[in-house]
């Protein structure tokens, strides 16, 4: 268990708020209409799912931004909004500082050239009846990057595969997806995204369906692309520990809203928002067990932290309904620190030290006692 200060697998992340902003979301929302049922048929205000509300974020050149949150919190919806696969219900998207709204056709294609999306499922995203060569050639053609001669194309293909470390390229070009391992398939999917030579890569849970032993390789590849090609990367994950290692900046979502943000080390080691504190105290922590092997009992490492007690209440771990989300702070029904105003007023972002912020009334200027963010529980 060597403690190397700055080993390659964990290269220090560059601080956020540097680097040119490539893609920006300003207060975007997405509401999905709920299907008409007999019960709500006559209802004039048809219910909607508040999948994403009032989300703002900036993706910067040469930087990885992680979005973490539990299942159903709206992470994939954000990726699809940023890729303009759905229209937003509100808010604005800016590419290189210019507002964009693309429909279909040419404008959409131009946008895609800059902003590429890769999905969680490397099995579903490639067509099983076509070879790697077909997938990559098609992507190069769509973005006019196939060159003019067969030799140009061959060179472009080889270069793509080399970028994702599938070498020698000849070994993979004529393979079908089923002949590749999950990790290799995800590399092909990344290569296909790179065919557009984009400036933004949106990665929705790119490793969660892969085997533990190959996840690290894909994450290192993404980091390598960020560094060599100066890409802006959005890394969506439900695994907050991987955000600590691979993202420069980490944003935390809860029930469709952004609740906290800042540089990854700060957010994961000194979480400010009670939901982030719940998330970090729930993550497995072998050190805590090995240090204190009264394993079965609850350990409260930092005193006063939101430690997940032996919850007996059935709703303790339930995320709220997004059709009628809780008023005020959406976390208030589960929050041990909820105050009166949390039930009625939506907390805005409050800035803390070092670029960290939290949307929580505990940090309001006029809060009775502003707590310091949680110290790491190591």
């Amino acid at each position: 268990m060597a403690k190397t200060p700055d080993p390659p697998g964990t290269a220090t992340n560059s601080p956020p708020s540097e680097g040119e902003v490539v893609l920006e979301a300003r207060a975007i929302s997405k509401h999905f209409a709920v299907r008409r049922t007999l019960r709500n048929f006559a209802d004039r205000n048809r219910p909607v799912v508040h999948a994403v509300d009032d989300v703002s974020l900036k993706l910067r050149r040469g930087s990885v931004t992680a979005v973490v949150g539990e299942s159903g919190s709206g992470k994939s919806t954000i990726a699809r909004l940023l890729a303009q696969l759905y229209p937003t219900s509100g808010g604005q998207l800016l590419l290189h500082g210019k507002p964009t709204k693309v429909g279909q056709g040419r404008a959409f294609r131009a946008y895609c050239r800059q902003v590429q999306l890769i999905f969680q499922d490397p099995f579903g995203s490639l067509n099983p009846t076509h070879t790697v060569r077909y997938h990559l050639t098609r992507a190069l053609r769509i973005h006019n990057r196939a060159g003019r001669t067969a030799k140009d194309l061959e060179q472009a293909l080889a270069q793509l595969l080399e970028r994702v470390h599938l070498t020698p390229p000849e070994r993979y070009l004529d393979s079908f997806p089923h002949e590749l391992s999950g990790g290799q398939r995800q590399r092909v999917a990344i290569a296909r995204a790179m065919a557009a030579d984009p400036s933004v890569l949106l990665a929705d849970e790119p490793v969660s369906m892969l085997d533990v032993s190959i996840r690290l390789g894909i994450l290192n590849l993404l980091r390598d692309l960020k560094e060599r090609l100066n890409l802006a990367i959005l890394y969506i994950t439900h695994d907050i520990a991987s955000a600590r290692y691979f993202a420069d900046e980490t944003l935390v979502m809860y029930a469709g809203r952004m609740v906290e943000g800042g540089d990854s080390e700060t957010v994961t080691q000194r979480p400010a928002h009670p939901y982030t504190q719940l998330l970090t105290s729930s993550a497995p922590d072998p050190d805590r067990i090995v240090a204190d092997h009264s394993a079965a009992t609850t350990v409260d490492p930092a005193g006063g932290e939101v430690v997940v007690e032996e919850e007996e209440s059935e709703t303790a771990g339930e995320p709220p309904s997004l059709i009628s989300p809780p008023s005020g702070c959406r976390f208030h029904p589960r929050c041990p620190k909820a105050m009166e105003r949390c039930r009625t007023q939506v907390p805005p972002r409050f800035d803390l030290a070092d670029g960290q912020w939290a949307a929580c009334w505990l940090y309001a200027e006029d809060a009775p006692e502003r707590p310091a963010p949680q110290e790491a529980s190591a």
Partner: protein
Amino acid sequence: MSSTPPVLEISGLNVNYGLGEKAVHAVRDINLTLHRGEVLGLAGESGSGKSTLAYAVTRLLSPPGVITGGEVRYHPRQGTDIDILSLDSEQLRAFRWSEISLVFQGAMNSLNPVHTVRSQLTDVLKAHRPDMTSAQRQKRAASLLSLVGISADRLASYPHQLSGGMRQRVMIAMALALDPEIVILDEPTTALDVVMQRQILKQLSRLRRELDFSVVFITHDISLLIEFSDRIAIMYGGRIVEEAAAKEIYQTAHHPYSHGLLHSFPALHGPRRELTGIPGSPPDLTAMPPGCAFHPRCPKAFEPCDQRVPALEPVPGDGSRTVACWLHADH
């Protein structure tokens, strides 16, 4: 923990998928003992044979899976040992669920969508405890739900009205319905988020202490295993390659594969550690490398490794743990 008497002893177990030439040897020469009251963790990459082992031990393996050799002995609290592999189907029916139960991988999606939670729970009771009255079954179903932290008024719910975490807890309630001595959980929380995952595992730890059963806990998330199990066995290519107390594996993994697994997960807590990962990809069971199956990926492979299979043997100088690696062979 290993001082308590054994409740399940697996010896020389082999499982194939398919027959003859094309057979895939998914589980190879497994020896493993579960002691009374302990949580035994089983870790390994996907395809390493964890689920196959669980299915074989509970005799739930379906064709083309076949047990080609070995023995699985169950030691009840009273009475004589039972040789699980030689039970006939009538005996098996009585044995399964009441002595050993299994929560399948992805079980939360296997609840019947057209029946309420109540009828699914009472059906299990009806099948195995025919002498229970209907009122007794209702009462038992309600108490089972509250055991796993779900209020009894959810008995009338259909599966789609429950969240994933609640469905998973219903499956655990069902596994506990007949007070089994052994509960096998195959990736019980992999599809859930960490908050829900911890909640369920805590409930399970508490139940295990209260009801005194033993657990085999299967997952690829080794940091979770270290926290919730007493002992851990690591599988690679169908074999167990290392077995030790959870704490000891975490502190010093002897097998290079265990070491690699431990260094593949970024840790949230504590200082940032170097992540080395494991080079290469998991072995193809239809074309297993000769010798130690890990040798093509092993950073420490040396001369005997691609020739002979290392046996799972006590670590020299520490008889409480075993490892299958030439680096630690006593000769």
